[in-house]
């Protein structure tokens, strides 16, 4: 039986947790709690599209950046999606971020250094980010049409196509305003990831493309 090729795993990363509450806003909104709800909805939406979904945390704990990256780096055919709620920005908008460009580095043994693990995957990450953000902008007016770039620590050590999604914001009139957005964001994410699926072939397998989408 030939090895399965292509994208089949999505690692969802509800950011913060434990003593790190993340952004805090009206009505006692805590980012670390809301992103768990967000992850649950996104998991269902992605499973509906046929993906296997793994979470970097399922309760109120706070794995390190490296532990979260390790969860996806141990998989083949996986992507990584970090989930955030902002303190700022126009309420009711969503932004998708991709790691800023940085030079790849390969160590003598041909290994990718851990702290530059994202570099070979930047092209694929941009493609994934743009597809997901296109879906977000259809649903959430005022959201940018394409993904933005930022040097995000969590994404740097991730050896897979990786994006961060940030919803604005914890400063909403009521908590319900934020919770109402979550199903739409989850659905948009699932559709964006499904649209990305044909672009990604597991690197290193026969007939596959290399990281970065280069044949």
């Amino acid at each position: 039986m030939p090895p399965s090729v292509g994208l089949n795993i999505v690692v969802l990363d509800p950011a913060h947790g434990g003593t790190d509450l993340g952004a805090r806003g009206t009505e006692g909104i805590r980012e670390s709690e809301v992103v768990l709800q967000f992850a649950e909805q996104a998991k269902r939406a992605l499973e509906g599209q046929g993906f296997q979904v793994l979470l970097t945390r399922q309760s109120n704990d706070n794995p390190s950046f490296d532990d979260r990256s390790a969860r996806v780096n141990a998989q083949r055919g996986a992507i990584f999606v970090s989930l955030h709620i902002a303190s700022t920005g126009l309420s009711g908008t969503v932004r998708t971020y991709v790691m800023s460009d940085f030079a790849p580095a390969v160590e003598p043994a041909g290994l990718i250094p851990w702290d530059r693990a994202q570099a070979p995957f930047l092209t694929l990450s941009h493609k994934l980010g743009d597809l997901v953000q296109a879906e977000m902008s259809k649903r959430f007016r005022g959201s940018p049409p394409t993904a933005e770039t930022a040097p995000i620590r969590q994404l740097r050590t991730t050896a897979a196509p990786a994006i961060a999604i940030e919803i604005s914001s914890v400063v909403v009139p009521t908590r319900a305003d934020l919770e109402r957005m979550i199903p739409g964001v989850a659905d948009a994410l699932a559709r964006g990831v499904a649209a990305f699926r044909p672009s990604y072939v597991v690197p290193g397998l026969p007939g596959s493309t290399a990281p970065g989408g280069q044949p």
Partner: protein
Amino acid sequence: MTPRWQFWGAVILFFLVMGAALYFPSLRRQVDKAKNITEKTAAEARRELLPPAPLNSGDPRLKVKMFWGSHNQDGTLVPVVLELPLSPDPVLRAKQILNTLLAGPIDPEARTLPPDAALLAFYILPDGTGVADFSEGLATGIPSGIQSEQLAVDSITRTLQANVPQVQQLKILVHGQEVDTLAGHLDLTQTFQVSMKEAGSPTPSGVAIITAPLHKAIEKVKGATRK
């Protein structure tokens, strides 16, 4: 002990417990208040000890472009032109510019950096890397989030780009230390591109520089901050 003494003992004990119950919350409030004052005073003292690189009215007045947030909170920066007396020395000028940026715009809603943050030191290395050392207030006062942290760093880099062309990339330290992130998201272990000029180009003559690699400069900043 007679029952009478037992009765009076119990009464005294009751009043002691009641008194303590009333007094301890008040004592705790006083201790917390004293602790806050001590922490605040320490931060203020540290700020006062540092040379503030004040604007010197004898310096030529130049138009500078400061990048603060837009009023519609859409995560964009807008340039604001000010006229300030600025030193011709790029290090001093960078300090004056960054202190003006930290002081913030007239509209507090357009701030990009927290009001409690202070610039502790600034250096320019031979390869054009600016090293800016900020107080902990930068990390603790900034609203958590990718957008807000990105906006803060962009406002620093774009303001330096517009006014101090000698700075080609920027390394941000917090209280003399290299930190993993600004407030949980933005990676501060790397340098930020400031100028479009190629990094490593020769430093213009007459620039005050530290002739040491970045890690040595960081050590120097750590030493200065500890003092």
